[in-house]
């Protein structure tokens, strides 16, 4: 989706709200500076930065924030050469934990993108309200306002769905969810083996064998039927076929 350059964006009724949000974070940063100044007589940029980061939504979702330290540690652990006498189950558990972290990150990215989309939709909605709603007629009731909102939000969400950014995020989300599920299964299957319980993989193999056998039987039956001769053709009378152009069947005919 094409992003609007803030410098070129026309003012919208949502701007005061966005300005309010920026003012809020700036104020907290200033508050941190003031508190530090009161306590030690000097401003501490590290404390101010920490408080800003605490107020930054991307840090909450672990996007480029403190999470990157944890998953790096896990990757480092998993990357080591495997030692024969170290339990495989522990390795699998670690892999599952890493996959879960990836899934949480991908999920957070998706949620952030959706939140941005809805924010843009709200900005567009306010613009349309100011311009006079649908068809230029001013909105005069809550149902009309609701209808305008659903139409505007739907348009924004449909456009966002098809954007390169959203498609990439959705793909990452799907892949990470599937990888986590696959890793979860591997871990569970290891436990099943230890407890003499058949696993999903083993059942899939059995089903596959049965399926392939059924298919072979079907092919053989067809060959047998063909070898023993086709049934005699019995057709009701049909009108003569002619070379006809594409016809349109009229509705109600």
């Amino acid at each position: 989706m094409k992003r609007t350059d803030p410098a070129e964006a026309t003012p919208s009724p949502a701007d005061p709200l966005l300005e309010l949000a920026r003012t809020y974070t700036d104020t907290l940063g200033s508050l941190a500076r003031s508190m530090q100044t009161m306590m030690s007589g000097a401003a501490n940029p590290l404390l101010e930065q920490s408080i800003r980061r605490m107020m930054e939504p991307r840090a909450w979702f672990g996007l480029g924030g403190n999470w990157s330290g944890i998953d790096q540690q896990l990757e480092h652990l998993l990357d080591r050469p495997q030692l024969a006498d170290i339990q495989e189950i522990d390795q699998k558990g670690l892999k599952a934990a890493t996959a879960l972290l990836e899934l949480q990150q991908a999920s957070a990215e998706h949620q952030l993108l959706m939140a941005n989309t809805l924010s843009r939709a709200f900005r567009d909605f306010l613009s349309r309200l100011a311009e006079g709603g649908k068809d230029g007629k001013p909105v005069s009731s809550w149902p009309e306002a609701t209808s305008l909102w659903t139409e505007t939000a739907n348009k924004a969400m449909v456009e966002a769905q098809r954007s390169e950014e959203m498609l990439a995020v959705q793909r990452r989300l799907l892949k990470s969810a599937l990888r986590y599920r696959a890793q979860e299964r591997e871990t569970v299957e290891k436990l099943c083996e230890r407890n003499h319980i058949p696993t999903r993989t083993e059942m899939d193999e059995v089903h596959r064998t049965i399926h392939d056998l059924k298919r072979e039987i079907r092919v053989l039956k067809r060959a047998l039927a063909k070898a023993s001769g086709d049934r005699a053709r019995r057709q009701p009378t049909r009108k003569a076929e002619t070379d006809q152009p594409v016809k349109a069947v009229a509705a109600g005919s």
Partner: protein
Amino acid sequence: MLPFPFNVTENVRELGEINRKLAEGVANFNKLREQDVDIATTPKDEIHRVDKAVLYRFKPEVEKPHPVPVMMVYALVGRYTMADLQEDRSFVRNLLKAGIDVYVVDWGLPTRADRWLGFEDYVNGYMDEFVDVIGERHGLDAINLLGICQGGVLSLCYAALHPEKVRNLIVTVTPVDFHADATNPEHGFMNVWARNLDSEDIELMIDTLGNVPGEFTGLLFSMMTPMRSLTKYNLDLLNVLDDEKKLLNFLRMEKWLADRPDHAGEAAKQWLKELYQDNKLVKGEFELDGEKVNLRNITMPVLNVYTETDHIIPCSMTSVLGKHVGSKDYSEFVVQGGHIGVFVGSKAQKTLANGIADWLKQR
């Protein structure tokens, strides 16, 4: 300050109206039980069963139905019960009233054991056996085939591989060219979504999940109309709560939507990779049991039913069938409505089944 006029009297009136709706709605809801929300009520008999797939015959409503019966083949996504949603919105009933003898294939509810079923099993296995059964019952070598959406693709494959067994072919809202994207951005999201994935992503999905869960396909469909999906239970439902008839219509559709079977894994892989991604059907590269599905082999009369406002399978994907089949008797029937509305919409009740019946009776 609100960006629109705030009329206290009008808003109080609206609030009162909403409260009235809610009160009557709660009363209506409390009266209803699960068995009141009945769908697929047209009487039918079980004729044949293979694994989980069942062939039913609907009880004819005329004394002498048309001599060549129709076998209706639904998609693997969703259940055939949509075609018989309720008494006054039933494509099946309308066909029966028009004198057509109707059979339907119920694909059942696939489990993990069905994960390996592919298109060849559905086409050369179940469909072929059911066609033979119907043929035996009626003393015919060829019957009429009617496919709905993905069921239409199954029917096209069947007609191409077994043309001698299909007398007339009808496909409805059926995708043919999977790369013919819509120009309307609100249509054809599946094309964009499927092609966004790599082939390895699809392999990973099927290998991990086995079958594609019904909830997953349900979510994809919801994404096609995002706000409609989000406001279904707080706006759409609120609007119909106080009208028992409309409320039941709403609940019947919900009942059908909730019945989401899983999609057999291998068939889903073929659907997404070979059709949506590689578009093999129109290229003549789609293979079943080692045999290429050549649409030119479809030489029997063909009726292609589609709608120009289909947001799931845009008409750019459906309307192109004529240039790919080998039939000299190819007709198109453009109807009003959406992908599902074609079958359950009030306008469609008067036109769709009668149009198809008339076309069949001439052949």
